[in-house]
């Protein structure tokens, strides 16, 4: 059954979590951008930041972080923006689907097909 996150829906908490900022430096963060910690949590760090650094010891997608923190995607992107700006995490962005640059789109899709057939 769908688990209803308990903390969502209190606008005041969301506002507090983001330090009252209304807009994050979320540029470039996608649901499936993989986040990796570049340091350990330190004393006095905001609890959400601590949790993100713990989670992202291995690559973890933005949407997985949101599910773990039980916070809306938008709010999580703001938190990640903080950590990105201070170099505490790095982001591995998805390959753009249309503007593929070097590799043709068919090559990526072939890779996906092979992966699925091998399941």
């Amino acid at each position, binding site marked *: 059954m*769908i*688990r*209803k*996150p308990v903390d*969502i*829906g209190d*606008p*005041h908490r*969301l*506002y507090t979590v*983001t330090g009252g*900022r*209304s*807009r*994050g430096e979320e540029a470039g963060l*996608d*649901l*499936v*951008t*993989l986040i990796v910690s570049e340091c350990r949590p330190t004393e006095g760090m905001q609890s959400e930041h601590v949790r993100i650094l713990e989670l992202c*010891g*291995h*690559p*973890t*997608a933005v*949407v*997985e972080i*949101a*599910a773990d923190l039980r916070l*809306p*995607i*938008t*709010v999580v992107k*703001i938190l990640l923006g903080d950590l990105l700006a201070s170099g505490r995490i790095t982001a*591995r962005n*998805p*390959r*753009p*689907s*249309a503007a593929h640059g070097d590799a*043709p*789109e*068919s090559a*990526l*899709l*072939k*890779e*996906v*097909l*092979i*992966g*699925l*057939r091998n*399941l």
Partner: protein
Amino acid sequence: MPLADAAETGLKIVIVGGFGVGKTTLVRSVSEIRPLNTEEVMTQAGAGVDDVAGLRNKSTTTVAFDFGRISLNEQTVLYLFGAPGQERFWFLWDRLFSGTLGAVVLVDTRRMADSWYAIDRLEYHGTPFVVAVNRFDEDGSRFSLDEIRQALDLPEDVPLVDCDARLRDSGKNVLITLVDHLYQQALAREMTA
């Protein structure tokens, strides 16, 4: 279960369908993790909340969705999203699912009308898709795929398959049908480019 440390590319496929059609079941049957649930917020007006300040008033609502994950190889991870088909969800489509590889419309033949809207919206957003009919045990009607294609007014070039969302092989087949369709489309585009 954490991802491989070499994981660098996340990809998205969205499974769209009405309430109870089996989206989460399909995600669960192929996912390497137990499906997780998360939410995004939006204003009642439908414009996305770019502005968290908007959260201070009560004019926000949330859209919940499930997701699962398949590690395709050491570097590439496919995320599967089960997305509700209701109207307000589509306001969030671009924000959540831009760059998605494609979509699966999951159909329950007892509630075919639910699928019309999803197909219309996917066409509007230019998202390539396939249609999978989830054959429930109690689906006594057993409409043929041809009948369903007619009922959905589905163009010939959109793949339409039967599935049993509870079965891993069946769910896997639906995903392969979609990605093969996308692959053929990409090849055709690259031939004429």
